[in-house]
């Protein structure tokens, strides 16, 4: 199961190796060329020398995670987030630490020893520590090095009505879509950039785009869904199960309006349920891609995910399939246009 393999692999910003290797193995039979660049972006090229528009798909390989920044005298590990993590989601969770994949837990004070007002206050990142069961600092230092990463341990599982839960759906769901789309037969050059370091400022996408020089780019993402109790409907941003969403604006980009219109029209023609992303915050690789050289036509298509940037997020398999169909239809449409030329 592709999404299970992808989400259960680990890849913090700058340390995407495990995800990259997995993707490389998945796509090798379907592409003409694979290369990596100085930042670690994985670029897969189909039909490099063919005529026609150069179409780029982008999905980022990295996920938010925790970096070990200190080892306490008693063997507990101090950490700081890489990418945006709310410390409140970390309490009482398990993690896997470092190259040796050591099990650890993020503990908290027992309720019995708390005073009631304490429970109203959130734990801060500074208060939380990882316990690997080391007896002392020396033992911990033998097992874990500073700068190593702690990852969430959530297993992919399908549940409820057509839902799946996993860690790192942002953006392994985009990676999974891109891997599947690379199997589409097209005559024009189709290039996928599996990018690095999106979570720390869209670092990989610009570098990848500069090399690819696409005519058009589609960013495939897992984006926030706030369709949960306690949230007014106009603040839902996206709704899980209402189809893939198309971004009209976010903090980092205004996707190319004619391309956005084309995608909405295509969805209607193909009877693919889509939604507008109703939130102007957040940014995707599109922000960097559109600013490459003299500018690139870009759009973002995303699968809504609840509880992103936490140990466990939730998506709808229908939305995932919808996103696949939408992008596939777009590629098919381009293919038909090419054939007519």
């Amino acid at each position: 199961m592709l999404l299970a393999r992808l989400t259960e692999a680990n890849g913090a910003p700058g340390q995407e190796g495990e995800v990259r290797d997995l993707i490389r193995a998945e796509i090798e039979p379907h592409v003409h060329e694979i290369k990596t660049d100085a930042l670690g972006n994985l670029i897969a090229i189909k039909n490099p020398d063919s005529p026609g528009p150069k179409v780029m798909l982008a999905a980022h390989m990295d996920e938010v995670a925790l970096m070990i920044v200190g080892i306490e005298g008693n063997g507990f590990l101090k950490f700081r987030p890489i990418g945006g993590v709310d410390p409140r989601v970390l309490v009482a969770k398990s993690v896997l630490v470092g190259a040796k994949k050591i099990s650890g837990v993020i503990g908290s004070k027992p309720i019995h020893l708390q005073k009631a007002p304490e429970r109203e206050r959130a734990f801060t990142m500074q208060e939380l520590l990882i316990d690997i069961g080391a007896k002392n600092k020396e033992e911990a230092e033998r097992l874990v090095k500073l700068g190593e990463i702690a990852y969430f341990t959530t297993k992919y599982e399908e549940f409820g009505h057509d839902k799946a839960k996993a860690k790192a759906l942002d953006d392994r769901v985009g990676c999974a879509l891109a891997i599947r789309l690379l199997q589409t037969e097209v005559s024009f050059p189709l290039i996928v950039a599996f990018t690095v370091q999106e979570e720390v400022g869209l670092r990989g996408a610009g570098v990848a785009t500069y090399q690819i020089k696409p005519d058009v780019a589609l960013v495939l993402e897992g984006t926030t869904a706030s369709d949960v109790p306690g949230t007014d409907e106009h603040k839902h941003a996206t709704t899980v199960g209402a189809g893939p969403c198309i971004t009209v604006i976010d903090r980092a980009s205004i996707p190319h309006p004619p391309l956005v219109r084309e995608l909405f029209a295509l969805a209607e023609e193909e009877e693919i349920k889509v939604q507008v992303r109703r939130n102007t915050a957040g940014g995707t690789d599109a922000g960097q891609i559109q600013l490459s050289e003299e500018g690139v036509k870009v759009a973002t298509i995303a699968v809504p995910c609840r509880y992103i940037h936490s140990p466990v997020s939730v998506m709808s398999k229908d939305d995932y399939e919808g996103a696949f169909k939408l992008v596939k239809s777009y590629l098919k449409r381009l293919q038909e246009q090419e054939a007519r030329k």
Partner: protein
Amino acid sequence: MEIKQVFRTLSEASGVSGYEHDLASHIQDSCPWADEIKTDKLGNLIMLKKGHGTNPKPKVMLAGHMDEIGLIITKIEKDGFLRFGTIGGFDQRVLLAQEVVVHAQKPLTGIIGAKPPHIQAPGEQSKAVSMEDLFIDVGFDNQEQAEEYVRIGDIVTMKRDVLELQGSFMAGKSFDDRAGVAAIVECFKALSQMSHEADVYGVATVQEEVGLRGAITSTYGIVPDIGIAIDVGFGDSPGLPESDTLKLSQGPGIAIGPHVHPKVHARMVETAQEWNISFSLDPSPHPGGTDAYAIQVARAGVATILLSIPLRYMHTPIETLDYEDVKRTGRLMAMFIAGLDYEFVEGLTCF
């Protein structure tokens, strides 16, 4: 048989207070050293290992509670999300982003969610998400889908496989007090290689977390001379004062305080010293939170003691202990029991 594996199975099994029935069979299957096994009306599992002596024999009761804290469904929202209350004491701050199992018509995977941080007001991130703003997402799109499986009153447990940490450290849910139950099984196993005069009743008690209830009825039924409650104690962890905690890997805490019989305490300490079993002294000025408290005042009164297995992060899904401490606790109890005779028991009412 490796009791550690039994402990792992017990931890991963479900048994919220009042809903312990599935656990009893697991425990029963893993304790072939009992001569008689029965359950009482509340669901306490009582395993008897007969002593080798002639009557009158000392009667020792070992109590470890098998129930765990959990959640209970209180409402099914229109959009299919579930609201819940708690059974036993949860810190609301440990619940966010936990995976759970809703024990509905079929077991359902759920995730405890809250409204996302980016739409919270500034400053809200420094506040804990309060229990009433949390919900369980079982992946249904509406109330009808949810109601096909879920009923108000369904029980929810944390979904957590046991983790092996360094050395013999382990982390998981409901170690409080399946560790105590495992220590009883360890004790029975050790006793099977020894000669002991006393009849030993190993009890996996129910409903401790909601008021020590199983200990009340099981003690009444057994009428022990000595009651040993085995529970978990606060393990040393960052941010906790040393005086409130027991160090992990140093054996059980042997309690001393009003709910502990002084002669039983003295004998337990001597036993540990004689057999070189490490332990900590556990001063307990405010008893109340364990089965020992209920056992002590059953019928005409019982000489009790509390042994505490050091445990970090109590009442969270990643409770952490050193399994060697469970073994030490089991061995200490076995040695204590092996050394008992009726004369000692008779002396317990002489002050």
